[in-house]
């Protein structure tokens, strides 16, 4: 991998952010709307007599962490779709740029965008709803990294699907996080799910991240087991996603789809 080519991909996508309002709204506007809506909801909850201690903080923490997962996986796939929509893929892949350099550049830009969104959400939660995530941030960081890794694996798998099946699968870029959400136990603990679903939920790194987040916020405890499970599952999913992407890319090359992707 050559750093100057990765820099070229970063430059290309930073230019896109500068000129494309959709990217700016995805990066700033939607995270802010999200936290504002959930913030008001927590104000309403605070008036309840039977409110479970820590619930409000857990909800706001979940909104912020899910925002990072959702935006990172979506923007990886949308970054690739930008090339496809602008018919730039042939220019890129007829150059010495490798797929791994391209994906690395895309990760760098979109991780930066996701972190900006996360900081905006955390800032608004602090200023408007007096919820300060920053003191527990060091304990949440390992779970955030796990979320980012899983988002990356999902983003890479979706991009592979788009390579092979073209824009027929482009809605996956936006919808796949929604598909995972019910089983990820974002806003409720694992025990809320029916027992027969809990096994499936535990197969997702996201479930371990949000269980771990609740332990940090409610009890101030770092759950090593949830972190370790999340990381191990992430390694497995990342390897599977990379293998799947390679398979899809090679299939697209063999079928001549790289030059017909639009």
């Amino acid at each position, binding site marked *: 991998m*050559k750093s*100057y*080519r990765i*820099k*070229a991909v970063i*430059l*290309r996508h930073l*230019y*896109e952010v500068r*000129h*494309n309002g959709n990217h700016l709204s995805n990066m700033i506007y939607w995270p802010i709307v999200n936290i504002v809506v959930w913030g008001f909801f927590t104000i309403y909850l605070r008036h309840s007599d039977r409110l479970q201690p820590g619930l409000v903080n857990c909800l706001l923490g979940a909104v912020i962490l899910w925002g990072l997962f959702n935006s990172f996986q979506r923007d990886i796939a949308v970054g690739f779709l*930008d*090339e496809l929509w*602008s*018919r*730039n*893929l*042939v*220019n*890129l*892949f*007829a*150059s*010495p*740029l*490798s797929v791994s350099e391209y994906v690395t550049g895309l990760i760098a830009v979109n991780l930066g965008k996701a972190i900006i969104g996360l900081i905006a959400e955390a800032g608004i939660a602090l200023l408007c709803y007096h919820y300060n995530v920053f003191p527990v941030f060091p304990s949440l960081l390992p779970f955030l990294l796990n979320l980012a890794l899983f988002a990356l694996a999902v983003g890479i798998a979706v991009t592979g699907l788009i390579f092979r099946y073209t824009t027929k699968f482009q809605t996956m870029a936006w919808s796949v996080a929604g598909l995972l959400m019910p089983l990820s136990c974002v806003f409720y603990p694992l025990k809320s799910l029916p027992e027969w679903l809990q096994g499936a939920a535990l197969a997702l790194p996201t479930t371990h991240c949000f269980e771990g987040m609740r332990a940090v916020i409610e009890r101030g405890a770092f759950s090593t087991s949830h972190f370790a499970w999340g990381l191990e599952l992430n390694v497995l999913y990342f390897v599977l996603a990379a293998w799947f992407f390679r398979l899809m890319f*090679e299939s697209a*090359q*063999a*079928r*001549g789809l*790289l*030059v017909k992707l639009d």
Partner: protein
Amino acid sequence: MLVVVEHLTKRFGNLRAVDNVSFAVQQGEIVGLVGPNGAGKTTTVHMLLGLITPSSGRIALFGKELHKHRREILQRLNFTSPYMALPGRLTVLENLRVFAQIYNVGNSTAKIVGLLEQFRILHLSNKPIARLSSGESTRVGLCKAFLNDPELLLFDEPTAYLDPQGAMQVRDILLELQARRGTTILITSHNMRDIQRMCGRVFFLNRGRIIASGTPIEVTREILNEHRVTPALDEVFLRIAQQ
């Protein structure tokens, strides 16, 4: 030989888009790959770039096997086609900066400005690509193609969207750049006038196979099967298309 293609075949299901094609191109040559729609010209060029995997056959560029040294080879060549585009929201300058970075071009701003001047589009530097005419976009694509001082240039229909005057200008610029740098050029085109004017040798393809090759006059005589003193590739093209 700069380009060596041996027994190249590409099948899509039952269709043989390229069928046992072999040719070679020497350094400094301008060679035309011509033929009617569906002849296999663009598929061949895409295989030379590694964008499509051949079903069988061998491709070697700069004396190296493409499937083993693809990125090293792609650093030394460039490609443009009016049928692909650059990101529309980015300006001309931004797009060229990105590609200059990909090819690790030194002193890239001066290089880009020089090329924009040469292709007479310097005034469009800060205009988004989406707001350019087809002819202007084609010229930006040509600037991109010369960014890395390529030893080999692959052009797919380089003058397709240009008016006759624009096409003539671009042809002259390409010939001048080629003469100055000794760049090897492989062109696919339907425009037989371009091919006749620019190419020293021509490979005529039909239904995936090379049916004639040689200088434009040799191909004219071979296909029309009569003695001619000037090349008439237009007539050759029509004869083959009617078959």
